[in-house]
């Protein structure tokens, strides 16, 4: 039973000074599950996933990732970060390194595998995000969509157990959103556990096992996409869906 659970957050509370960003959040993620997190800006959805790989510290509650309890020790943080990949809104590729170097740095430094092996793995994943022919280029020479696909490949090279996506398409020009979403859908179909903060509701319908709606640092409502979109229970959820779906 426990084996099915990859991430367990219990009673998580987070403050920024006097401002409470997360209020008593409980979240359990099973292996292979795809979760879409949505909600208005400032609702704490980015903060929530940034707590999972300890880019943000929490003040109360517990987070367990792949059986390892995340505390303040460097060792625990290390172990968890090895299992958790992350893709950012602004790509955050390393501009002074080639695409290939971006993908091999962490495996070489953190996993201590050989350069040859790291490059073979990197080329495999770059191929998989259909960008294998750009391996020798620098990030600035690529389009936004290509950069984000490199960022996905870079995270995959560490062979994470779960991938976190923090608004991965929000900084992209509209014509590039699809190529990134397609890559994410491919990843989902391969069985990767994923938590995506996104407003791409088409994507949510297609791949999510569960959609979670957050507001003011709390999980307000969650459900399978079908029920969630067709029959939202909460007033806040209905308001929010009304606002974002009006644009589609």
């Amino acid at each position, binding site marked *: 039973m426990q084996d099915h659970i990859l991430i367990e957050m219990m009673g998580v509370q987070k403050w920024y000074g006097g401002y409470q960003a997360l209020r008593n959040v409980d979240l359990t993620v099973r292996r292979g599950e795809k979760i879409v997190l949505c909600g208005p800006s400032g609702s704490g959805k980015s903060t929530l996933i940034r707590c999972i790989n300890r880019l943000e510290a929490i003040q109360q509650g517990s987070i367990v990732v792949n059986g390892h309890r995340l505390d303040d020790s460097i060792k625990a943080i290390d172990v968890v*970060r090895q299992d958790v990949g*992350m893709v*950012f809104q602004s790509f955050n590729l*390393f501009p002074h390194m080639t695409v290939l170097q971006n993908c091999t*740095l962490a495996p070489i430094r953190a996993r201590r595998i050989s350069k040859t092996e790291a490059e073979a793995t990197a080329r495999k994943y770059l191929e998989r995000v259909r960008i294998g022919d750009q391996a020798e280029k620098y990030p600035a020479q690529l389009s936004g969509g290509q950069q984000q696909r490199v*960022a996905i490949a870079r995270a995959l090279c560490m062979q994470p157990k779960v991938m976190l996506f923090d608004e991965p398409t929000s900084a992209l020009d509209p014509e590039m959103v699809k190529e990134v979403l397609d890559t994410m859908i491919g990843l989902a179909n391969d069985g990767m556990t994923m938590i995506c903060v996104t407003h791409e509701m088409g994507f949510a319908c297609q791949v999510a096992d569960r959609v979670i709606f957050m507001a003011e640092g709390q999980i307000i409502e969650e459900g399978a996409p079908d029920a969630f979109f067709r029959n939202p229970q909460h007033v806040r959820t209905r308001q929010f869906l009304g606002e974002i779906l009006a644009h589609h």
Partner: protein
Amino acid sequence: MVPHFGLPEFGFLLRGLQWTVLLTLVAFAGGCTAGLAIALLRTCGHKGVEWITRIYIGIFQGTPLLLQLFVVYYGLALTGLKLDAFVAVAIGFTVNASAFLGEIWRGAIQAVPRGQTEAAMALGLHYSSRMRDIVLPQAIRISLPATIGYLVQLIKGTSLAAIVGFIELARAGQIVSNQTFQPLLVFGVVGAMYFVLCWPLSWWGSRMEARLALASQR
């Protein structure tokens, strides 16, 4: 009989130039090493350590370099530590340079976008790798124009070493001028020597700045 400015005098100035260059190189190398340590401590995230380095930088930026040289040369002599003039000024300039370079690089490290560090952390990279592989290579590029600018200031600033009796280029010029009574000619030559050292560096620095500005527009 008063000697005229000739080859021997020119040779004397050249030897002064050598000392100026040597002093600059030693102070710059030492300043870079210590300055890097200062910059890293200044950005380490530990409040106490950050305060201590802030005070260190404040002291050496907030008092005249001349005073610092006096303290090293005469002050240390009072405690029984008699230093050779070159060693004394080299220490003085190194410490001073470490404060200025430390502050320049502190700014450059903080100018590297936060997302770079976050991406590196998310990939499981440790502090040493984050700094060595990600932050510093970018920070050094950002700081290059200011660093070169500081180097030019340092070259010219070494003339202060003359005060404690160290014969570098400016002091050599003064000596030759006193011997020959040809101050315009002598200091003209001295000025030209400084110019030949500094101008190419300044030019390189501003070219670098223009290139960086162009790169950041893209």
